[in-house]
């Protein structure tokens, strides 16, 4: 087991190194000069050249990469060209917002998706089932950002307490305020800002969870122990909630884990639409501004979170299910 873990950690480091090389190459291959972009349509060639020299962008690319890697290994991801702030600060400002949105979207998806899936399974082949399956199919198919735009122009414009854009204060902070001082106003403000973006992002996941819950519940309901319980005269709803659902939810838990990783970088367009100050926006802006240090640093950070999460998931499998062995 220890050998396995060490092996995985080594592989993880190689992966991250590979990510940094690929991102470095891609960003430097992109036509466009960060200084020129920064100075805009009225840039003067003299200024472009002077600033490139001052920032050291006239050095050979391998030299730039090695010097970046050297500082990165010491925990310094460099300074943004455009924003003149440390890359780590920029990431630290955004990551909580992105995580907050991802968690909220997943929570919504689970809260709505599981009951819908159970309902569909219990009332299999009835209009309820067909309706919920149709809903989930459409939910998966509709692009998030399109759903977001529609929500904005309809719901946010007609319901006064639902804001159109932006984020309230960090949810954790406002929750803490509520717990310590009993003042619910900031918490409420954070929550109402979170609502629409979370719905826009969560819809497709909800749809996925609905389908998954339904199919795996149907599967479990056919299994022997459930049949036995039913035969013993245990009430139908008890069978489902106590016996079947618990077993049916394992794949749902897995999909939630996978989706969380995907959401960290995948909600970009939704972040743009709702002016949500997340990391996806930071990266997209930085790619278009050719702000190399920020792109490298933040994609590397997301990749690190992703591979670490995967490692933890795999390890936890071996704990949950002792049949999986790594030898």
């Amino acid at each position, binding site marked *: 087991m220890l050998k396995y873990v060490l092996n995985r950690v080594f592989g993880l480091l190689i992966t991250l190194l590979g990510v940094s090389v690929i991102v470095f190459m891609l960003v430097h291959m992109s036509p466009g000069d960060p200084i020129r972009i920064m100075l805009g349509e009225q840039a*003067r060639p003299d200024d472009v050249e002077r600033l490139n020299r001052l920032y050291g962008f006239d050095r050979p690319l391998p030299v730039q990469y090695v010097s970046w890697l050297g500082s990165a290994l010491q925990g310094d991801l460099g300074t943004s060209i455009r924003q003149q702030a440390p890359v780590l600060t920029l990431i630290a*400002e*955004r990551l909580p917002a992105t995580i907050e949105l991802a968690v909220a979207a997943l929570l919504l998806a689970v809260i709505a998706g599981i009951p819908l899936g159970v309902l569909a399974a219990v009332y299999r082949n009835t209009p309820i089932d067909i309706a919920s399956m149709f809903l989930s199919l459409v939910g998966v198919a509709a692009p998030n950002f399109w759903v977001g735009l529609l929500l904005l122009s309809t719901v946010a414009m007609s319901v006064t307490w639902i804001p159109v854009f932006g984020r309230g204060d960090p949810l954790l902070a406002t929750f803490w305020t509520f717990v310590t001082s009993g003042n619910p106003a900031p918490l409420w403000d954070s929550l109402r800002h979170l609502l629409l973006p979370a719905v826009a992002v969560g819809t497709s996941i909800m749809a996925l969870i609905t389908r998954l819950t339904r199919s795996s519940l149907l599967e479990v309901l056919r299994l022997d122990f459930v049949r036995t319980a039913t035969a013993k005269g245990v009430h139908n709803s008890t069978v489902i909630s106590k016996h079947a659902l618990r077993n049916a939810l394992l794949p749902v838990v897995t999909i939630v884990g996978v989706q969380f990783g995907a959401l960290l970088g995948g909600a970009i367009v939704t972040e743009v639409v709702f002016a949500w100050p997340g990391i996806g926006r930071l990266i997209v802006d930085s790619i278009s501004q050719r702000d190399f240090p920020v792109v490298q640093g933040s994609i590397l950070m997301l990749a690190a979170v992703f591979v670490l999460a995967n490692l933890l998931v795999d390890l936890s499998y071996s704990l949950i299910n002792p049949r999986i062995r790594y030898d």
Partner: protein
Amino acid sequence: MKLSRILIALLACLLAGSVLGQRLIVGTVAEASDLDPRTTYDVYSYQRMYPIMEPLIVLDTDLGYRPRLAHSWDFAEDGSQVTFYLREGVRFHHGREFTADDVKYTFDWVLNPENPAANPGLYEDIELVEVVDPYTVTFHLTGENAFILNYIARLHIVPADLGDDPSFGSAPVGTGAFEFVSWSRDDRMILKAFEEYWDGRAKVDEVEFRPITEDSTRLLAFEAGELDIYHGQVVPAEVPRLEGDDRFVVQRVTGLGHAYLGFNLRNEELAKPEVRHAFSHLLPREAIVERVYEGVGTVGTGPISPDTAFYNPDIPTYEYDPELARELLEQAGVEGLTLRLHTKENPVRMQIAEVLQFEAANIGIDVEIHIEEFGAFIDRIMDTDTADFDIFILGWSGNVDPNYAMYELFHSAGGSNFIAYGNPDLDELLETGRRLPPDSEESVAVYKEAQAILMADAPFAFINNTEEVGLNQSWISGWEIHPYTSATYQDLHLIEKKR
């Protein structure tokens, strides 16, 4: 009875709260990159800087000069120096008094080639900054650029004791009406009223800048009452509707920029004036302004804004006339032409490109549209070694003087002359113009002649003159949008919010 009394008390508290803590919410088109006036270039950073820091003088909304940190100034007889007399008793937010040393520090920093200043070229004309006494500072000039005051009016004074702090740009200190409080990027920047502001405390207590890059989202947020004011990138298609809504005030003022088609004169077909004239006649400017811009802005007539004294109203314009365009092409002996049209990803410019493509196809010219991301696009246009383009759409803004509007673009040695245009007569006029006193008749005459030459050569086809659009809620008063976009919040302390 008791309950209602409690309710009334609660309500009173709420009302009192909102009266005591008025916070102005300002929507902006993009996040600031940095708040150091010396190293920053973009409009959205400057918009946030104006309330925090101040230049010696500012441009008024009619583009005249107005005193700010300097209460008056005068030029030496021969124009070789300009002296500013500073206000006394002005304090920076950290308490120290503002003096001539801060002025010298700021300008010296920008002129030092070792420092990463964004635009030192504008200040090349300054030879030396001399501190005469704490409240008097003299700039010694080379006389190469008579419009130097316009550029001095764009540089905010940085406190000498804090300016070298590497974090200055993310938490600046100035003499402005608002103190910097906090900034979480892409989310919000908060400023609070500076109690000791020399021109009187601001009428609101706090200002919150909210960047919203999506034009549609920003407008929806404004309509929902979540933003008090915003300036710039108002979707043209929505302007007529907003103007008919009495909850909102739509402010419009002639802008200082234009969009144009640039023709690469290295292309042998585009080098023929007839071909360029043909394209200029192909451009349905009125339809574009009327429909694509929904009447925001005016038909493009040249590089100089029609509202300024330097504008030449006697130069011929290019009317939309596809038949004439076809004849011009025949005259030039051009057939079966295929040209690339480059533009950046911008909804309005893409629409203009498609309009031109459509018009050109009607007279047998094949225009291929190449839409590129800004970085790739600007590299293509600005890289004079490869010059791999035929026609492009670009804009030029901030034209507070004719030198700024013409020199870099049309002088054969101009830094932004990407199309290899050159006319010795025009070069000479542009060089003469920048040495003449800006308010002289000679200066106006020189630039009028320059425009006549330019319009005949037609290296550009001017599409439109911009118009600035600002929106504010009816509960906001005391805000006047500025034709110079960066300065639109320079008098933020005069704005009142009654809600």
